[in-house]
């Protein structure tokens, strides 16, 4: 069942087309990465989804309703859109107490979420004295306060140190294991790759790809590195099978267009000894960059 449905969503700011007929859905209980380079239209899309920005065309719904029509929005959707949404002169605890009143949750929940994001010790410090990473954690705490079914997080890893990013991944995995739906935006695929079930990629406000990670990696022509004393012969045999071999040394080949199984079988047929064969790890970032670069080329006039 789709809990988030974006249909032909378009937003124009004057002459700038920020989001261009974007359509995608997010299924219940999945973690979806929302990816695109800076300025791709991710934040504008999320703001339209949350009723903060009025679409020029199209619709964005949550559980079949527009956000503004949700009866208890904080219990349906928890969102963290920017790390500066808390008043700098207010303490983290008081910031959450205000949200607890609006969301009608007991104030004991404030302490729970502060502990969840490791901010208990800083709870009575003013937010203006927080580091960017601490503000990100506070935003996460705010989004989790009312135990929503859906989480929408805009670049939550921004400002987090490596330990913080590791912690965030763990938190997202934990949330996903509870059957909740998460839509998390990022401009770095590697940041979310370990957590997401599928990715929506956009650039220049347009949908570039909506696929699972497996489908995304399958797009990449994976290479196999082979070491053999008869590299020339193997390269010739591979060429006959429409695979490409690149010489990395006298005995080393980098082969694309054939799997390691196909290469092994071919070598056996020709009685070519293989000393070593290794499939190169797919670089998701390369796939992402290839996709967005291809989109750029189609957008740029010759």
């Amino acid at each position: 069942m789709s809990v988030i449905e974006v249909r032909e969503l378009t937003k124009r700011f004057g002459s700038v087309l920020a989001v261009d007929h974007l359509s995608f859905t997010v299924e219940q209980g999945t973690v979806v990465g929302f990816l695109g380079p800076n300025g791709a239209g991710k934040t504008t899309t999320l703001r339209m989804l949350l009723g903060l920005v009025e679409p020029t065309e199209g619709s964005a719904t949550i559980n079949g309703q527009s956000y503004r029509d949700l009866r208890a929005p904080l219990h349906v959707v928890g969102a963290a859109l920017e790390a500066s949404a808390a008043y700098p002169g207010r303490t983290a605890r008081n910031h959450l107490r205000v949200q607890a009143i609006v969301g009608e949750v007991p104030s004991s929940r404030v302490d729970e979420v502060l502990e969840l994001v490791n901010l208990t010790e800083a709870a009575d410090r003013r937010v203006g004295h927080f580091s960017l990473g601490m503000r990100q954690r506070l935003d996460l705490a705010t989004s989790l306060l009312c135990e929503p079914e859906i989480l929408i997080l805009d670049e939550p890893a921004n400002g987090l140190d490596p330990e913080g990013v590791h912690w965030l991944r763990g938190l997202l995995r934990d949330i996903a294991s509870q059957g909740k739906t998460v839509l998390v935006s990022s401009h770095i695929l590697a940041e979310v790759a370990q957590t997401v079930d599928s990715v929506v990629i956009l650039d220049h406000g347009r949908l570039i790809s909506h696929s699972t990670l497996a489908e995304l990696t399958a797009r990449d022509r994976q290479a196999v590195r082979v070491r053999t004393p008869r590299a020339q012969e193997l390269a010739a045999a591979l060429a006959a099978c429409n695979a490409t071999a690149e010489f990395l040394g006298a005995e080393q080949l980098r082969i694309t267009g054939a799997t390691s199984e196909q290469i092994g079988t071919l070598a056996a047929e020709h009685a070519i000894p293989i000393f070593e064969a290794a499939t190169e790890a797919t670089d998701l970032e390369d796939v992402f960059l290839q996709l967005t670069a291809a989109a750029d080329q189609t957008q740029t006039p010759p």
Partner: protein
Amino acid sequence: MIRLIRAELLKLSTIRLPYGLLTIAAALTALFATLEASRAGSAGTGVARLTTASGLSTVTTVTGFAMLLAAVLGAIVTTGEFRHASATLTYQATPRRTRVLVAKVIVAAAAGALFGLVGGVIATGVGLAFASGDHAHIALSTGTLLGHIGGAICGAALLAALGAALGSLVRSQLATVISIFVWGIVIESLIGGLFTSIRPYLPYTAATTLAGAKLGNAAFGPAHGEAGTVGPLPFIATFALLAALAVVVSVVAARTTVARDIT
């Protein structure tokens, strides 16, 4: 709505700015009341002796600064959301934005009332202290003095509500706060000096008359102290005028800027 009002009250009470503004309002009221009391009865000052009702009320009704700062507080209640980008979170929690505006105007009025109370009590205290120090007869009845304090509470509350509505309309904190000071101190003074007949309808001047101030005593420019031929509107009419103005500005804001995109 009660929930939203509670949240807005907590927002206001958990930052330092309102306390700072209230302290400034109290200090300015004490300062100007003391200055007025010190020069009461001196030739050429236009302030009668403190033994007279006119002289004493000149001191006990020096609540204009508290009212002006109440309007500034009201503006901060609404514009602070845009200055610190917290409107994103506020409207996420309450997508029906008009409800947020109504809650903010109510809370601004309540906080403004406190400014009026503090200003009224301090001005009255200074006036009575000077009058009793001179062993002078207290020329104003307790009822009149309490009425002035009540008027200061009403005037400050209404100006704070108007400030909150104006803040919603303008969004920029700096522009709204500057507008309030320029309007109260310069524009009303000039307009009031040039066209004395419209003085009772000018919002800041009207609010000060609720607290018993004479028309023109709130201003600093050519209108200051000028008696003119027109008296203030009746209390109820002034109250209704200011309340209506706050409602009109709120409605205009709700239909225009409040509905705008939060980017």
